[in-house]
C-alpha cells in the first residue's frame, strides 16, 4: 500500500472528528424513525412477552378508521390553525411597528420575548389560575364586555378550553416570532425605501409595497416554523387535562401518541400515529423548501 499523502491523513482526522456526532445521529435519530416505521406494521404491546405479530397495514386501517384518532387530528388542526394565524399576523404587525421605532427597540423586544423563556408548563400553570372562574381572564373579559359576574367556563367548556390553550400558546411565542420578523425586516436594504420616500410614498404604502413583498422568504419560513411547532404542542394540553379540564377537545395528537403508548401500552398503534404525524410534518417542510426556492428564482 502506498503511503497516504498529507491530504489523505487530514481527511482521516476529519472523519475522526465527525464520527462521534454521526454515530449519535444514526443511533438516536435515524434508527428510531426507521424503528417506528417498522413497528407500525406490527401488533406490539409494551411489557408484553409475546413476540410482535406482523399485521401489514392493519394498524394504519385501525388508526384511520378510529373516531378517537380523527378527533385528535381535529383538535390538533383547530389548535394549530387557531394559534398560527394570530401568531403570524400579530408578530408581523408588531415587528413592522417596532422597526419604525428609533428608541426603545431593544426593550420592546425583550419584553415581548420574556414569556418565551419560561417553561411551557409554567406558562400553562399561570394561565390555569387566570382561567379560574374567579380569575383574571373572566374579570378582564367582563370588564371589556361590561358583563360583571359572568363565568366564561374557560376550563370546563369544550370549545373554551380550546381557546384557552390557544391563548397560552400565542402569549408564549408571540415575542419569539416577532424577533424573527424583525431580523427579516433588518435584512431589507435601506435603499429600497429611499427611492419610495423620494417618490412620496407614505409608511403605509411602503409596508405593503416594499416590506411585505421583500419579506416573503421570512414570512414563509416563520409560517411553516410556527405551524410545525403548533402541531407538536403537548405541555399545555397535558397540564390542563391533568388539572381536570375536559380532554376530548384538546386531545392533540402528541397526547394521543403518549396515551396510546403509556396508558394503553399499544406500541404498534402509537408508532403508526407517530409515522402519520411525521409524514404530515415532512410534507409541510417540503412545501416550505419548494416555495422558498421558487421565491429565490423569481427575484
Amino acid at each position, binding site marked *: 500500500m502506498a503511503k497516504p499523502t498529507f491530504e489523505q491523513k*487530514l*481527511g482521516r*482526522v*476529519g*472523519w*475522526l*472528528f*465527525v464520527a*462521534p*456526532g*454521526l454515530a449519535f*445521529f444514526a443511533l*438516536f*435519530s435515524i434508527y*428510531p*424513525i426507521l*424503528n*417506528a416505521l417498522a413497528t407500525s406494521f406490527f401488533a406490539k404491546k409494551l411489557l408484553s412477552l409475546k413476540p410482535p405479530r406482523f399485521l401489514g397495514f392493519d394498524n394504519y386501517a385501525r388508526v384511520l378508521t378510529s373516531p378517537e384518532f380523527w378527533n385528535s387530528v381535529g383538535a390538533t388542526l383547530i389548535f394549530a390553525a387557531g394559534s398560527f394565524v394570530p401568531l403570524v399576523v400579530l408578530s408581523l404587525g*408588531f415587528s413592522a*411597528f417596532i422597526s419604525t*421605532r*428609533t428608541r426603545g427597540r431593544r426593550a420592546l423586544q425583550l*419584553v*415581548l*420575548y*420574556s*414569556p418565551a*423563556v419560561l*417553561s411551557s408548563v409554567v406558562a400553562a*400553570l399561570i394561565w*390555569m*389560575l*387566570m382561567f*379560574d372562574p*374567579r*380569575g*383574571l381572564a373572566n374579570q378582564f373579559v367582563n370588564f371589556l364586555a361590561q358583563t360583571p359576574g359572568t363565568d366564561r367556563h374557560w376550563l370546563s367548556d369544550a370549545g373554551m378550553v380550546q381557546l384557552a390553550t390557544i391563548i397560552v400558546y400565542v*402569549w408564549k411565542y408571540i415575542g419569539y416570532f416577532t*424577533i*424573527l420578523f424583525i*431580523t427579516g425586516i433588518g435584512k431589507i436594504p435601506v435603499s429600497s425605501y429611499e427611492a419610495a420616500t423620494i417618490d412620496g410614498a407614505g*409608511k403605509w404604502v411602503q409596508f405593503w409595497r416594499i416590506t411585505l413583498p421583500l419579506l416573503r422568504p421570512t414570512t414563509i*419560513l416563520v409560517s411553516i*416554523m410556527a405551524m410545525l411547532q403548533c402541531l*407538536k404542542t*403537548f*405541555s399545555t394540553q*397535558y*397540564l390542563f387535562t*391533568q*388539572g381536570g379540564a375536559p380532554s376530548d377537545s384538546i386531545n392533540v395528537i*402528541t397526547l394521543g*401518541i*403518549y396515551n396510546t*403508548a403509556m396508558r394503553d401500552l399499544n*406500541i404498534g398503534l402509537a408508532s403508526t400515529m*407517530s409515522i402519520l*404525524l*411525521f409524514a404530515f*410534518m415532512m410534507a409541510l417542510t417540503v412545501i416550505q423548501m419548494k416555495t422558498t426556492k421558487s421565491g429565490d428564482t423569481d427575484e
Partner: protein
Amino acid sequence: MSERRVRMSVPERVSDLVIWGVLGLACALVVLPLGFMATASFMEARQITSLPYPWVPSSFHWQNFALALAGGDGQYLFLRNIFNSVLVCTLVTLSTVALAALTGYGLAKFRFKGRNLVFLAIMGTMMIPFETIMIPLYMVVLGLNLQNTYAGLVVPFLLNAFGVFLMRQYLITFPDEILAAARIDGAGEGRIFARIVAANSGPAVATLAILTFRSQWDNLLWPLLVAQEEQMKTIPAYIVKFAAEKTADEGAMMAVAVIASLPILVLFFTLSKYFVGGSAVYSSGKE
C-alpha cells in the same frame, strides 16, 4: 441625535402616538400574567381568588414558598427534582457543546470523501420531530434498563443537529493559516482543537449552551416517559403533579412557578443577546 429631531407633521405625530399606544398595550398584556405569577406567589389563596384581583399582596405570605418546597406530602421532593433538572440540563448542555464543536469542526475544516453527504444527513435529522421518535427511544431506554436513571434522561439529547449547524457555520470562517501554522509547529490535531479552535469559539458556544439549557429546562415529555419514580422527576413533571393535586394551594402553585422560572429569567436578563441572537441564527439555519 439632532437629525433625528426632524419636526413631524400632525398626521405623522398621530400615527407615532398610535404605534406607541399599540406597542405599549401589547407589552402590558404580555407582562400581565408574569405580574400575576409574581404577586400571587406572595398571597394567601383566598386573597388570590378575591374579586377584583388585588395585585398587591396584603402581607408577605412566605408559607407559599415553604409549601412549594415541602410539597403536599412534606417530602421535599421538589428540592430533589430541582437538583435533577439542574444536573440533567448541565450534562446535556456540556455534551451538546462538546459534540457539536467536534462535529462542526470536522465538517468545516477538513476535506474528506462523503463530507457533504454527512452534513446533509445530519441536517436532515432536523426534520425528524422528537415527538415522532420518542416511543422507539423509550424502547431503547427500556432495553438498556435505563429507566429512572440520569443516563436515561439525558441520552437522546446529548447532541442536536442545530448545534452542529451553528458550530459549522461559525468555524467555517476560522482562518486556515492559523491551523496550518500550528501543524507546522508540530501541534497534534487534538491539541489544535482544544487549545486553538475551542478556545476561540466563545460566542457560538455561549449561544448554543444557552439555547440548549433553556430548551432542556422546558422538557416535559421525555422525563414523563423515562422518570416515573418521584425521586427522578424533573421540575416540569413536578409542576404537573403539584398542580393536579385536588388540594393544591394556589399561592403555593405560583411559588412553584416562580422558583422554576427564576434561574432561567436571571439567565435571560443577563445574557439576553444570546437568546435573541440565537433565535435569529436558528431561523437563518432553516432558510
